[in-house]
């Protein structure tokens, strides 16, 4: 099981095709906002782009913050949000320190499900699916990954 990483975001041209593809194929919308990954310039287009998406952290703060247990932790990394258990309180959105969670018009949270569909559409190969190894894991094991 792999997770999404924007490993080569410095190559990004700001076309938003990743966001548009995710919204179209995963969430059934025409959108560059209701999408698991969102692209924005970091202080004007002349300074490059950053990708906002779920970093698949080891101890998801969003899951901890959910009062109804709608967010479960995926074994491979990342989270799963059960719409039927969600009360649209936005606690997860506020809790995520990297603003990875957005919401639909109806208030349902939307987060990257690490399906990797977007990687097929990035024209510059900025995105890839990699084995989930967090820096915390590396630290816990007392070594480096060699990367």
């Amino acid at each position, binding site marked *: 099981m792999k997770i999404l990483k924007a490993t080569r975001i410095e190559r990004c041209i700001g076309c938003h095709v990743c966001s548009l593809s995710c919204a179209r194929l995963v969430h059934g919308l*025409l959108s560059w906002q209701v999408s698991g990954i969102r692209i924005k310039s970091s202080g*004007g287009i002349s300074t490059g782009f950053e990708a906002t998406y779920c970093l698949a952290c080891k101890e998801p703060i969003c899951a901890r913050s959910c009062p109804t247990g709608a967010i479960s932790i995926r074994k491979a990394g990342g989270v799963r949000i059960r719409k039927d258990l969600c009360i649209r309180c936005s606690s997860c959105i506020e809790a995520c320190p990297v603003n990875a969670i957005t919401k639909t018009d109806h208030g349902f949270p939307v987060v990257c499900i690490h399906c990797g569909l977007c990687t097929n559409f990035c024209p510059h190969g900025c995105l890839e699916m990699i084995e989930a190894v967090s820096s915390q894991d590396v630290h816990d094991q007392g070594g480096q990954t060699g990367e």
Partner: protein
Amino acid sequence: MSMIKEDRQVNKGNFRIMTVDLSSGKASIEKIADQDKAVGGSGLCALLFEKAGLKDEPWNHPEQPLIFAIGPLTGYFPLMSKTVCAFKSPYHNQYTESHGGGRSALSLRFTGLDALVIKGRAKRPCLLSIGSNSLEIKDAHFLWGMDVIYSGRIIRHMVEKSHGHRSILRIGPAGENLSAMACINADTYRHFGRLGAGAVMGAKNLKAIVILGDSSLPMPQENKPYRKMWKEVFQDVHSSGMMHKYHDLGTPANLERLNNIKSLPWRNLQASYDPDAHMISGQSFATRHLLRNLACSGCPVGCIHVGFVREKFTKDSRYYYQQMAYDYEPIFALGSMLGIKEPVTILKLIEKADRLGLDAISAGVALAWATEAMEKAIITQKETLLPLSFGHGASYLEALGHLAVASNEFYRLLAQGTLKAANRYGGGEFACVLGQEMAGYATGELFFAAQSLGFRHSHLDTGAYSYEQKHAEQDLKKAVDFLLEDELPRCLLNSMVACLFSRKVYTKERLAQCLESLGYLDLAANLDKAAADIRRARWKLRFDTGFDPDEIEIPKRFFKVTSWKGPVDRKFLLELKRSYGQAIKNLVFKQANPPQGTRK
């Protein structure tokens, strides 16, 4: 963020138009039928100007509309990434269009609008911000006089919403000073460049427009056909190599090729070839000055080539750097046309024109004329304030500033068009003006006639420059037929609104399939008629606002050009112009049965 709902997928069947009146500070939302007829983009602009434009009033009348429109495929398919801006032009006081990209098209789509119409004049300089559920007109008097780059930085702080998805359209000093060469800058590196749209904003006291693009839209009800079509188009764009030339060296790849066939204007078109063209070739820019590529939103091609200049400004190791987008046309206008062969100088001139909000093509061609006029002692430094001389960039950097702010009567006239200045001072015979300052194609008679009379006086109105590179024969009928036929598919693309770089991807059949997949069945079945109707509506507006092909004269300089076909044939050029002019008149005044589209 909100989602736009209602009974529509986008605004199918009806256009959703926002009109903002800067005089009253109020806005209205209107639904207009006829989407199957006016389509969007270029067609929609014509429809809206016909309703709201004051044909007999001057371009700067407060009630003249400034229109931005997108089309039915905007955002739904790759490279459907352009916005059409329509207005009465300060250049010729007639109806025109200017097209731009950046984020503008998708941000309009995600604001839930097919078009934004701006009327009225604000009492003081202002900034307009629109979103799917917000509208603000902010005081911006402190931005007046500020350049495009710096004002963009401040605006990003003034409007903090929708970071990453908003489009910021703004003008520089040229627009504020009502220059007919003032562009509207879109998101730093793109422009609504030609025919003075920036002055229309200036006349309205409108420094900037922020389009938030902060909503989402539902998919078509029948989602599968759409997804299939999208994938098919994406594969063509991304994997087939069809777009390779645009993302490799980009448009500057043309430069050396045009020079080799004696079609690259040098030094105010005193020559069409120079042995040093390799110094400013696409390869030369890419190797030494290409920083990275960017894309308009929704386009995976990323044809925008951002160059950089790094300069030492003290004896110690202190440097600054600047970034600017380069393309073939600005390299021609601020490079070869001015006799400049150092890429760094050309990039600095492009950056300066950008900052000032000047259209790079018009400004470069106008300064080329001023240089030759100075060489011929028609004007002196009293007028130009500087010693203009081909190949000397430092003077041109300063001259751009004078042109933007109209420092004296000479620059004020020049900023209204080279021929306006030539009418006062003389030298009209070597003004490189084909309806407006020429685009960079000295390919011969057909292009000169085509730009002179083209709807936007743009090299993109038809593929004349490309046709001419393949056809040396003098076949008047065939050539005029080509111009007429080639305009039709472009009318459709400009109404969808596609980037014209995708014209080989979006054949008429492909457009019909895309429209069908979104449920526009009637439109998909009647594209020929739609194209003919749009073309006629656009030309009618031009004639209604004063266009007369017989009044346009081709300056003598163009008759002295030697291209790859040999010396320009005066008789053939005049015949082409007369015949094409008559054909255009026939489109509006004699048309009982609109011609059918002929795109293969």
